[in-house]
């Protein structure tokens, strides 16, 4: 999802302490930053929450791309507010990660030099305005399905960040649905654009939940620690079941011939995405990986003088205050 394929760390701690820790988690107690925790729990969480934070930040790029070209002033104001929320989500999550003993700058540097990942979905381009609608509706829709259960995750700061994020997220999905609905109900050309956006973004959206359960290593430990609440396939199925009727409501064609209601399972059947494409995007070979990282690196470099200048000013003022006392 926003954190995909997070490798969980093996833990070599004292078995007695580990058992007591697991008992706390099983009792649904929240783990707070100063509490004892296994090294593996700490490291896995840094990776997972950090990757989630990076996804929020990099996720601003494909949408920010359309702020200046939104079709009306109202749509522009809405998109601007949505993208600003994503910056906020990134900040809540960075703060949660920092409570685990890693600094903000370290996290940023690990994103910029490729040691840490962000969600594969943001390596796909937003080619036109219909894509912006589809991203809000499908990508944020998928994010909600992942984030709602994470509100109950065992790590206190992560859980609190997720609660805050979830409060803001339905605005994101609804504004996207509203934008694409306008196009689906518009001229034949607009409807065609809406269809094309759904066709292109459907499988990348399914990939957000990570590889199929049968190929998903590392899940068991994370689920025992309650830092992963559901399996990838459970969440993906939930997304498909929720979204298919919405596509039908819009009067658009389903983006996958394999989608069929399965009476016996009580779920929609659907086709798997092309997993080789997914692994290729994760490796850095998606359509926009290079652009996204270049944009983040440029922003970090271009902002250096502002960060340094404001800090120098603050230090000078603090020194003057001390001298005056």
């Amino acid at each position: 999802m926003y954190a995909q394929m997070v490798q969980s760390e093996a833990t070599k701690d004292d078995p007695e302490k580990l058992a007591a820790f697991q008992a706390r988690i099983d009792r649904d107690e929240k783990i707070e930053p100063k509490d004892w925790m296994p090294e593996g729990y700490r490291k896995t969480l840094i990776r997972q929450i950090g990757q989630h934070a990076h996804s929020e930040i990099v996720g601003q790029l494909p949408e920010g791309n359309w702020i200046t070209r939104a079709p009306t002033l109202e749509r522009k104001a809405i998109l601007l507010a949505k993208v600003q929320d994503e910056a906020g989500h990134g900040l809540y999550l960075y703060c949660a990660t920092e409570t685990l003993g890693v600094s903000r700058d370290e996290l940023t540097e690990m994103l910029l030099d490729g040691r840490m990942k962000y969600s594969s979905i943001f390596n796909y381009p937003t080619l036109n305005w219909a894509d912006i609608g589809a991203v809000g509706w499908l990508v944020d829709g998928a994010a909600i399905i992942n984030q709602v259960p994470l509100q109950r995750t065992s790590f206190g700061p992560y859980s609190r960040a997720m609660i805050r994020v979830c409060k803001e997220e339905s605005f994101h999905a609804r504004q996207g649905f509203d934008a694409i609905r306008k196009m689906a109900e518009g001229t034949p050309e607009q409807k065609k654009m809406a269809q094309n956006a759904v066709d292109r973004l459907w499988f990348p959206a399914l990939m957000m939940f990570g590889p199929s359960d049968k190929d998903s290593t590392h899940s068991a430990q994370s689920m025992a620690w309650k830092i992963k609440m559901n399996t990838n396939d459970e969440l993906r199925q939930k997304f498909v079941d929720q979204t298919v009727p919405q596509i039908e409501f819009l009067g658009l064609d389903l983006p996958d011939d394999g989608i069929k209601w399965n009476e016996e399972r009580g779920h929609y059947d659907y086709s798997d995405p092309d997993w080789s494409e997914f692994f290729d995007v994760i490796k850095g070979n998606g359509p926009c990986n290079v652009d996204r990282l270049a944009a983040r690196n440029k922003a970090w470099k271009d902002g250096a003088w502002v960060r340094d200048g404001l800090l120098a000013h603050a230090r000078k003022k603090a020194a003057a205050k001390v001298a005056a006392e």
Partner: protein
Amino acid sequence: MNNEWPLWEIFIRGQHGLSHRHVGSLHAPDAEMAIKNARDVYTRRNEGVSIWAVEANNITASSPSDKGPLYEPSESKVYRHPTFFDIPDEVGAM
């Protein structure tokens, strides 16, 4: 020298009459910027009427291992709760 902006803990009063509550943290070069950033990060939807920003390294916290010695003494003092006392119904509201 470490050039990372210091960490600030942010407390917000949600409505008139309520206490400030911890909402999260952020980085800012100084107190004034911490308040401005807190406005943008934590009150985009009218969540507050007042903001406190405290530099994180000025906060003293109790340690989790003190839990026993700090809080156990109050466990044995059940008489501090009104339900400890049996008041006959005839006495009326109290």
